[in-house]
């Protein structure tokens, strides 16, 4: 396992480029011309991508599974010894390729999208910092380096969601994201501390080596995995901490794409996949993950059915898809989860960038009820969006089909009920995505006075590349049913230890695929009938609704529940502290100290009378006291 691979030290450059880009665009942002910042930032991420590709081939040709590169010895206190090291293995390489590849496309796209913003250079600085943090997260060779990236990602998401900070609602959304993440981070850091106390190390290799000797189901390992799970739930927006993600749509659209596709939300999935050895030892935690993932997938999909903001629909679909990844993790199929993460990165980035292109064209309008008929006006966006929609719905041979089908078949193996629930979620996904698609691109244009136009090339080229990836990305991991050999899963085999076999008997699988395919086509048909033939429009705000739809439109009242359960008691407690404790107790104490100091000052001022001979006396008295003090010791 340990060995030197020539030129592996190139790995330093992967995070170094975005950091450099951040420093250049951040520090010299005012001096750069309007668009130079974007070009520099995109180039930096692209260089990182190239180096990641080089690393990929280096690792492959060396025949080794992993390489650890120590940058410097970071913390050495007592028996704690934590190097600042990077771990290059198949899992982190996959993540690096996704982060830098999709990230660079999003950066290029942003050059066009953010063209008219006055703070465009600081936007790119923050984007680069975001990518840098994410790379640190996926490359770290121990939990502490991972945690730095984890926190950096949280900070950058705060900055970017609140990028248009002049709008108080956006600021509020940024704060909400930050606080929600913070709750998760608390669990995560407790988990790291507990890991350190259990294994006397935070390094992946040492912990996993020790953990593989342990028995499954121990209470400590369950507690550790649950605490780490809390962090993952916060970062990857699962129930009950998912509410920040839909609000995070306040940021510019490329930020949403970056958060949802390449960075941030995938961190939780990555962390659990990375800790797969630990999770395999904790069956209870795996069941919790399965439950959380499935609930999130279905609940978010139901909410997505009645959303009218194009970005909100996509946000809920992200939450739902992350739920699927959690489901896969909970079933022990870690490489399926990472595979779905990869394909999801392609088509979700594409969907967001397409949505950005549409919003750009509609002059900032985000309500899908006001769009329509964009098929002719924006052909490139239309086709790429179609590819992404088919991919997320799981229509073969698009990429989403392979990854989602893999998760569904795992669910079927585990439990038939689980399978049908997951399939139901997938059908809901298909419905709301086609609802969105038909409302936006078909029918008549419903917004008067708008002149939609195709976006500039700098925006459409990333769309096309992502479109190609969305279509063909699934071929990375073709199951044996279609004559493939699961190359992606096998590639990850050395880094994650899957609990279940990635294969399934082909006769069952073909039946399942046919079943889901028939249902999917049925759902698409229903969506077509409703929104294109009948041209039904979703209800306007304020129109009377049935109780059921009112609950859904209000997102199951989860935000309101949090408001009542958490925020109200918290703010009344804060008020109590302010009114009673602070003003009645703390302020008098603090004021009293100040008052006493000035009183003493007034008294002792009289000693300072300015007379030389008095000073002589004082000095001699001081010396005398000093000598006497020494003598008496």
């Amino acid at each position, binding site marked *: 396992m340990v060995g030197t691979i020539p030129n592996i030290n190139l790995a330093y450059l992967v995070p170094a480029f975005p950091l450099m880009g951040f420093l250049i665009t951040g520090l010299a942002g005012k001096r750069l011309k309007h668009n130079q910042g974007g070009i520099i930032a995109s180039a930096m991420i692209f260089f990182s991508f190239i180096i990641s590709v080089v690393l990929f081939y280096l690792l492959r040709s060396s025949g080794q599974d992993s390489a650890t590169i120590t940058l410097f010895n970071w913390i050495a206190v007592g028996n704690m010894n934590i190097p600042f090291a990077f771990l290059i293995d198949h899992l982190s390489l996959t993540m690096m390729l996704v982060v830098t590849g999709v990230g660079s496309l999003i950066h290029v796209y942003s050059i066009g999208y953010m063209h008219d913003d006055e703070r465009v250079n600081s936007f790119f600085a923050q984007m680069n910092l975001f990518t840098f943090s994410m790379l640190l997260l996926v490359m770290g060779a121990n939990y502490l380096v991972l945690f730095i990236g984890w926190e950096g990602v949280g900070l950058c998401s705060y900055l970017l969601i609140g990028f248009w900070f002049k709008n108080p609602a956006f600021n509020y959304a940024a704060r909400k994201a930050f606080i929600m993440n913070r709750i998760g981070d608390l669990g995560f850091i407790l988990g790291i501390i507990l890991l350190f106390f259990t294994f006397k190390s935070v390094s992946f290799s040492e912990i996993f080596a020790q953990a593989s000797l342990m028995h499954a189901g121990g209470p400590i390992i369950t507690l550790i995995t649950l605490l780490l799970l809390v962090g993952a739930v916060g970062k990857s927006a699962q129930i009950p901490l998912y509410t920040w993600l839909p609000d995070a749509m306040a940021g510019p659209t490329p930020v949403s794409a970056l958060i949802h596709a390449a960075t941030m939300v995938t961190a939780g999935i990555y962390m659990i996949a990375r800790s797969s050895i630990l999770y395999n030892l904790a069956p209870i935690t795996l069941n919790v993950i399965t439950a959380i993932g499935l609930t999130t997938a279905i609940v978010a999909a139901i909410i997505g059915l009645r959303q009218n903001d194009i970005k909100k629909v996509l946000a809920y679909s992200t939450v739902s898809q992350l739920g699927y990844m959690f489901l896969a993790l909970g079933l022990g199929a870690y490489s399926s989860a990472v595979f779905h993460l990869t394909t999801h990165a392609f088509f979700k980035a594409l969907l967001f960038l397409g949505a950005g292109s549409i919003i750009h064209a509609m002059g900032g309008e985000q309500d899908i009820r006001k769009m329509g008929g964009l098929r002719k006006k924006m052909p490139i966006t239309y086709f790429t969006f179609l590819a992404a929609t088919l991919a997320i719905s799981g229509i073969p041979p698009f990429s989403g089909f392979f990854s989602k089908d893999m998760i569904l078949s795992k669910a079927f193996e585990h439990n038939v009920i689980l399978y049908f629930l997951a399939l139901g979620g997938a059908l809901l996904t298909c419905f709301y995505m086609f609802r969105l698609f038909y409302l936006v691109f078909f029918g008549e244009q419903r917004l008067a006075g708008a002149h939609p136009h195709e976006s500039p090339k700098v925006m459409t080229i990333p769309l096309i590349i992502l479109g190609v990836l969305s279509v063909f990305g699934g071929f990375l991991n073709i199951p044996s049913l279609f004559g493939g050999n699961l190359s992606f899963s096998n590639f990850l085999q050395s880094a994650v230890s899957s609990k279940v076999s990635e294969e399934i008997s082909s006769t069952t699988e073909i039946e399942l695929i046919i079943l889901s395919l028939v249902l999917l086509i049925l759902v698409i048909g229903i969506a077509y009938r409703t929104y294109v033939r009948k041209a039904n429009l979703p209800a306007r705000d304020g129109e009377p609704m049935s109780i059921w739809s009112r609950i859904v439109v209000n997102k199951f009242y989860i935000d309101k529940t949090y408001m009542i359960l958490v925020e109200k008691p918290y703010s009344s407690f804060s008020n109590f502290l302010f009114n009673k404790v602070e003003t009645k107790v703390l302020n008098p104490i603090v004021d009293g100290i100040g008052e006493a100091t000035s009183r003493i000052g007034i008294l002792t001022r009289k000693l*300072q*009378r*300015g*007379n*030389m*001979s008095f*000073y*002589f*006396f004082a000095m*001699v008295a001081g010396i005398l006291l000093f000598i006497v003090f020494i003598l008496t010791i």
Partner: protein
Amino acid sequence: MKDISSAIQLIPLEHYILLSVALFSIGLMGVLFRRNTIIILMCIELMFNSVNLLVTAFAAYHSDPSGQVFVFFIMIVAAAEVAVGLSILVMMKRNVDSVDINLLNRLKW
């Protein structure tokens, strides 16, 4: 020459210490006692010299010439100090037309 240097053996070191301390205390008393700044400067010189004497006595008892070199340096510093101190005195006389230490009563800002 031999007679003189043999005197050291007769006198215990304590007596040199006592003499130095006595001279030092007198100098200290003078600093506190007088108002005339020039007398205060002279008392400071007296204190310097009592310390010099003590250091020399110790050096002699240790047969170590570096103690005497130290005394030499103290003399250098004392000479510099006198030069500066007397010029301050001259300036004081020029400005307030007196050398009374009690007139220097503005040292509180």
